[in-house]
């Protein structure tokens, strides 16, 4: 077992550089901006072309005419390549500043800067989003100082709608909607459907997931994982609302509790409407697994059990829970088999999303599978698991446990192949991996929707052509 976390890569810091590194970088710029503080205390900037000798720790250039450069105070040379692209912004952003002291050659007046420190940023080494994440502490200091100055808390803001969307990570709700509706549709195809309980099931299950999403941010912050992650993406690294100062940790905890309480209330209403021992067990296990996902003492995701917890929670538990609410009966093999491909595909969403988080997770002691295993093992794990998901569909159809129309789910195989091929080249590039993570979410969503469509077809055909059987055997 090997770890993929790379301390060397993690230790990249911006913008601290040593003088030699700064001078080496300065050689890459066509001109340099000489800066010094004049006798009136104002900075002066003047463009020069310096000859850089990194190994000698010096840069030499002609003295600017009419502007005496002081030798008794620090002077700097800056190279900047914030290349403007009229119309849409800037690219290949990089800049470097080297400080030092100045001495003039008495023979020709040429100036020599002896470097002692440097500072800079190159987005090719530290992407802008990572640079921003590494700068969160500066933003916090800014708001703390402004708050102290004004005597009232000043905090970053977002409109309520955007903040709610970000805090709850609402778009991920497809992970719940797919299995719950599939469970309802399977029950309907067997002749059991109740609209009120179906709607309540969707609401209750959504509350459990939103509670999980928000609680995950709370506990990952308490345990340091989200603070240590400097490469979050839109699909990974949590909502960041606590790290950005948009919502306090306490409030996030309260929101999570609110969702769980709402889920419990809806669950009790469902139990009152459709009494079922299976539903009671599924409901309790679902909430416990959801909480235990990040919360101590179990912290399943910290122990490499997060993928299994997600597979069980967003596969069999959600689907079978919705199913038994409708049927009022017990769990069936057919419904259980239908939940398995969904379970594997949803676990793979988490699995792939954990890849860019693995360095921060490793530092926080969060032993997810991508933290525990090497790149090749993780990629192979994806391929085997996604193949297993499709194999279950085929075997399920062949054994008559799933309808023939379930084979429609195989239409998502090209998307899965796209993910499989994209993992290797983007494994160490969180921002390149974002597109792959997006496709991986579509694999689960589209496969789930196609399975729902498969059972709707069963429903339609049983109404229109009762003699046609869509199940083998």
């Amino acid at each position, binding site marked *: 077992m090997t770890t993929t976390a790379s301390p060397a890569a993690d230790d990249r810091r911006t913008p601290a550089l040593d003088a030699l590194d700064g001078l080496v970088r300065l050689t890459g710029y066509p001109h340099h*901006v000489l800066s010094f503080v004049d006798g009136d205390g104002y*900075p002066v900037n003047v*463009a020069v072309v310096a000859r850089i000798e990194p190994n000698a720790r010096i840069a030499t250039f002609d003295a600017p005419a009419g*502007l005496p450069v002081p030798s008794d105070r620090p002077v700097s040379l800056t190279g*900047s390549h914030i*290349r403007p692209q009229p119309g849409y912004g800037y690219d290949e952003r990089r800049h470097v500043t080297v400080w030092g002291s100045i001495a003039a050659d008495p023979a020709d007046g040429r100036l020599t800067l002896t470097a002692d420190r440097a500072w800079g940023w190159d987005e090719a080494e530290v992407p802008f989003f990572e640079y921003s994440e590494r700068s969160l502490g500066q933003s916090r200091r800014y708001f703390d100082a402004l708050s102290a100055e004004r005597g009232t808390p000043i905090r970053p803001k977002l409109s309520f709608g955007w903040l709610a*969307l970000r805090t709850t990570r609402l778009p991920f709700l497809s992970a719940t909607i797919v299995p719950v509706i599939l469970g309802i549709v399977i029950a309907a195809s067997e002749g059991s459907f109740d609209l009120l309980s179906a709607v309540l099931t969707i609401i209750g299950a959504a509350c459990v997931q939103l509670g999980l999403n928000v609680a995950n941010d709370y506990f990952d912050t308490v345990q340091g994982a989200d603070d240590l992650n400097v490469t979050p993406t839109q699909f990974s690294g949590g909502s960041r609302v606590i790290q950005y100062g948009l919502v306090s940790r306490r409030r996030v905890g309260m929101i999570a509790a609110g969702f769980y309480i709402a889920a419990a209330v809806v669950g009790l209403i469902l139990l009152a409407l459709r009494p079922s021992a299976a539903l009671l067990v599924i409901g309790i296990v679902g909430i416990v697994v959801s909480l235990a996902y990040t919360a101590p003492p179990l912290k399943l995701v910290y122990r490499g059990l997060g993928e299994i917890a997600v597979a069980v929670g967003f596969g069999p538990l959600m689907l079978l829970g919705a199913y038994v609410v409708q049927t009022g009966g017990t769990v069936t093999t057919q419904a259980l088999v239908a939940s398995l491909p969904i379970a594997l595909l949803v676990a793979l969403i988490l699995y792939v999303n954990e890849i860019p988080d693995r360095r921060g997770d490793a530092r926080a002691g969060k032993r997810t599978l991508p933290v525990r295993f090497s790149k090749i093992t993780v990629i192979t794990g994806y391929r085997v698991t996604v193949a297993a998901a499709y194999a279950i569909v085929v075997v399920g159809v062949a054994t008559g446990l799933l309808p023939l129309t379930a084979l429609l789910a195989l239409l998502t195989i090209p998307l899965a192949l796209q993910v499989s091929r994209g993992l290797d080249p983007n494994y160490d590039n969180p921002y390149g991996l974002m597109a792959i993570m997006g496709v991986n979410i579509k694999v689960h969503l589209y496969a789930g929707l196609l399975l729902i469509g498969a059972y709707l077809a069963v429903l339609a055909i049983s109404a229109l052509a009762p003699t046609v059987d869509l199940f083998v055997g």
Partner: protein
Amino acid sequence: MGTLPEPVEALLDAALVAELTVVDGHGRPVTYPLIPLYDGERIYMTSSTLFSRKLEHIKANPKVAVSITDPIAVGGRTDRATIQGDARVIEDDPHGGWERILPIWEKKEPAIVAFLKARVALPLFFERALIEVTPRRILHWSDGDAATTPVVTEAGRAAA
């Protein structure tokens, strides 16, 4: 007519990048590449709270310099200028106060409006303060060559 010599105003209007130099607590010049936004009287720049150390320096010492040195950033013009001045940090409302200069910003970087609409993706980048620079002294190199003594103008006199 503005407060700066005409060629310097033209440079500022054209420039997609300038260098803002502030003085840190140790008396060292610190230079930041930023977009200069000129309203005919003062130069404005904005800073995200993420990269707000420059604001701390300005609050402690408002003396700054803004230079335009990159010919690629000014559409191939070869003249260069440095404007020394006094800076003020405007931070009444970091969330939206800076948006008053958005029309000038948009002229130079049209994409900024689309980025702003997607601020949910990077909220702290759009929590910003304005840096307002009142020009005091202008150095202009008409040929862009530092071997030539710059023409020095006190702000306001050019427009008088």
